[in-house]
């Protein structure tokens, strides 16, 4: 990688000041995407601001009818948290299958969603569970947060501080992993909450999306059969050496069906 200036921020304020002062700063959370990208010389920040030292960004707590998870909370912590396992077991299970154990020991919730990889798992959790992203500046609804391929609503140097997940009645996430990278070829989060049913799909398109027709059908009856006949259009879905858009569209239905079965199971 190219050289850079490394700074370890001790507070949010410290981090944003350092970022503002730098020529071309990049925040680093877990570094699980950023470091490999820099190793391949595809990113060249002048300053790398490590958020790993900001204690207030980590932690999991119950906040009324929601779980609040700090942005720097590692996937392994979410996966093994008793709080998460009892309140939203689907979220713990999703976190338990991100990457590999070593990625889960380093990778963070905030880093993952800020990167907005089209094949990442967390975007499906945020949108499917109707979460809210808190930053050092504002709150952003998950539906508005992911805006495209590796694109989010975050502004320059804005820092995610926490994600608030409302506790659903039922939820499950099922993914079809890429045999090489093990990222999601298709991952579907199905969630039934007080305000309705949500179906969020990651991996299939350039960014996480909801399937309106499935949500409507499941609102009537939360059963696998309800989504069986619903196919998302192939147009706009990803095609790559691992899966065509046609196959991904098919998998969305299969994974949704399985997620519903798991949610009611």
């Amino acid at each position, binding site marked *: 990688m190219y050289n850079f200036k490394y700074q370890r921020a001790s507070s949010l304020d410290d981090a944003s000041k350092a970022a503002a002062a730098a020529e071309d700063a990049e925040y680093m959370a877990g570094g699980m995407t950023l470091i490999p990208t820099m190793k391949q010389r595809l990113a060249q920040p002048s300053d790398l601001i490590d958020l790993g030292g900001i204690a207030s960004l980590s932690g999991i707590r119950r906040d009324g009818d929601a779980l609040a998870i700090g942005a720097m909370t590692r996937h392994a912590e979410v996966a093994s948290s008793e709080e998460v396992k009892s309140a939203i077991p689907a979220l713990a299970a999703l976190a338990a299958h991100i990457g590999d154990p070593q990625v889960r020991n380093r990778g963070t919730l905030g880093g993952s969603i800020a990167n907005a990889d089209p094949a990442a798992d967390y975007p499906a959790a945020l949108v499917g569970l109707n979460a809210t992203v808190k930053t050092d500046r504002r709150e952003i609804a998950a539906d508005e947060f992911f805006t495209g391929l590796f694109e989010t609503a975050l502004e320059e140097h804005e820092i995610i501080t926490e994600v608030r997940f409302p506790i659903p009645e039922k939820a499950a996430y099922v993914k*079809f992993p890429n045999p090489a990278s093990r990222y999601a070829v298709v991952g579907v989060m199905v969630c039934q909450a007080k305000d309705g049913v949500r179906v969020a799909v990651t991996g299939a398109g350039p960014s996480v999306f909801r399937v309106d027709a499935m949500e409507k059908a499941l609102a009537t009856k939360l059963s696998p059969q309800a989504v069986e006949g619903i196919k998302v259009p192939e147009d706009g879905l990803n095609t790559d*050496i691992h899966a065509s858009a046609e196959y991904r569209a098919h998998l969305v239905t299969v994974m949704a069906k399985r997620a519903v079965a798991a949610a009611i199971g």
Partner: protein
Amino acid sequence: MSATGIGAAVRRKEDYRFLTGNGRYLDDISLPNQSYAYFVRSPHAHATFTVGIEKAENAPGVIAVFTGADIVKAGLGGLICGWVITGKNGEPHKAPPHPLLAVDTVRHVGDPLAVVIAESYAQAKDAAETVEVDYQPKAAVTSPTAALDNSAPQVHADAPGNLCYDWEIGDKSATDAMFNKAHHVTKLELINNRLIPNAIEPRSAIGDYNSGTDEITLYTTSQNPHVARLVISAFVQLTPEHKLRVVAPDIGGGFGSKIFIYSEETVAAWAARELKRPVKWTAERSESFMTDAHGRDHVTHAELALDKSGKFLGMKVSTVANLGAYLSTFATCVPTYLYATLMQGQYTTEAIYCEVKAVFTHTTPVDALRGAGRPEATYVVERLVEQAAREMKMDASDLRKINFIPADAFPYQTQVALQYDSGNYAGSMDQALKLIDYKGFSKRKEQSKAEGKLRGVGFSAYIEACGIAPSAVVGSLGAGVGLYESAEIRFNPTGNVTVFTGSHSHGQGHETTFAQLVSDKLGVPFDNIDVVHGDTARIPFAMGTYGSRSLAVGGSAISKAIDKVIAKGRKIAAHTLEAAEEDIEFKDGNFTVKGTDRTMDIGAVAFAAYVPHNYPSDELEPGLDESAFYDPANFTFPAGTHACEVEVDPDTGVVDIVKWVAADDFGNIVNPMIVEGQVHGGVAHGIGQALLEGCQYAPDSGQLLTGSFMDYGMPRADVFPDIEVATQVTPCPHNPLGVKGCGEAGAIAAPAALVNAITDAIGASNITMPATPEKVWRALNAAG
């Protein structure tokens, strides 16, 4: 059997150092004043170029920048191919130049054209970005069949039509005659997918020059350091052989990819002399993907003719093999003598004809990879046989059984040059049927069906030819080298033993197996024996490790040296014990006068040999140090049957391997633990090929699409079931140990077994490897 002798599952000697982080792999070595090399590589599959290095030369830390022109100026030759194939037309194959660094044309993505040498690796890599290359991209071709098209871009001006050779074996008219009288003909179009070797240790090298002695030492990740020395001396003409030492230390896996002589290590050796400083290069994984010689990549049309009873009458095979952009060291023999000569399989097929067109494309060179030709042959034979059984509505194991070469028919002359020496094919098949509980299959299939899954079973009755030999025969077929192996057994005065072997261990556990052999035969305690390999300055001239030859050929050389030690020891003992030589018996490490208790152990004999105070000096030299070369009389022919069961999820096309059994015949076995491990690893490689792995290039641009572990599907632990391994023994009749070799069997057997099981499960006649979920799902949809 002793606890450490032949047949014992001895724990490995080498493991302590590997388990404690004390292995000495190439990149672990650093020499004083070492510099670092980084290669500038083509991002294009095909382009002409000019290069400017001035900026790079002035970049921080840069010591030198060399281009292809510098190599030409230095008078170095290019890389060579060590096996000349003579085509149907009687002409030798086309062998276009393979420069160490491209001079004006690059022919595959990753083709090196310059090297930057700097004080640190990071500086070399930084400076490489400032090398100014002006590329004129040209049209590229990556598919072997497309390369034969009249309009295809040409890879080399001196290989018209991209053809390296058009070769044949077998009796064409006899085969046609068999097809004319056939009751049934089964036909298949088969693709043997291109694989990337991916030993977990990337290739690496350090060149080191001693100005005082004018000797170059090349540390390199090689399976055969003497072959590397020979090529770099005699063909590249870097320096005479006696001035070049090649050291291959602990190597992190080879699988064939570290047989070959590559540009990078050769350039590192040369640059070290130019700069009078050690030059180190270690591949990044992305470089490994682009430059380690790939494997397989065949397109084949195959037909099997059967009579009414299912007896195989004839087989016709036509293959196009992709050799990549340049001829790698042994590329040409893989799709010919290591492939077509195995078309007999385990069967009595009466006539066989096989033709092979080998072509150049704008891709990474292709050469031997675990199995090398034999997996491709087994895939052709065993896919055809399984498909024929389905078309003839016969049981796949029964059809095989009626066609097996009987156990009493050896030696058996095949229709494709080889003479099989021994085997019991029906025995292995029966073993496999029992292990997989074939009788219970239909019940299990019903069970799976009730759970919404499709179950299938598949067999692969494979045969391989290992320990390629004898030298005189391979020489007549175009090989540029001999195929013997060397060994030396050196007793030290205190009675412990150093064994020098020409075989190279890069995972096979030779330090253990060979020590078992010596301990068993000479009665020296296992712990008092060390095995040395991988250094041309220490071991006799040797051919190295590939083609499952180490025990059959290298072990046999050790065995010959053991015999010489015993013969000399007998003389020394006779003298000391004051007996006639013919009255001395050797057993369990003791030389004893027949029928008496007068005895001396081999340690005492060694001491007497090195401290020859009471010694037959007029007829014997002092010392106990014997060497031997062994040139086998024939190949060895490991064979067996693998069987597997799969469950396919019809909703997604995902294949779950639920059971795998391997019934192999490797002849005698020295260390069953190591042999089982070799089978597991081979099977995993074969499953990888059938299910996950497949190198892909963009057909138009020639870009490598599977250039990292993110896109190239490597088998992981959760892919595999428990693998059940069983063996039977028909000893090899022509080597002193009766051994056959086991390193490649799994990789040879597995792809056909798995694809046979998958096609059985989904009711399709064919599916292209790797059988990815989407392909399986599509095949299911097509089958309705």
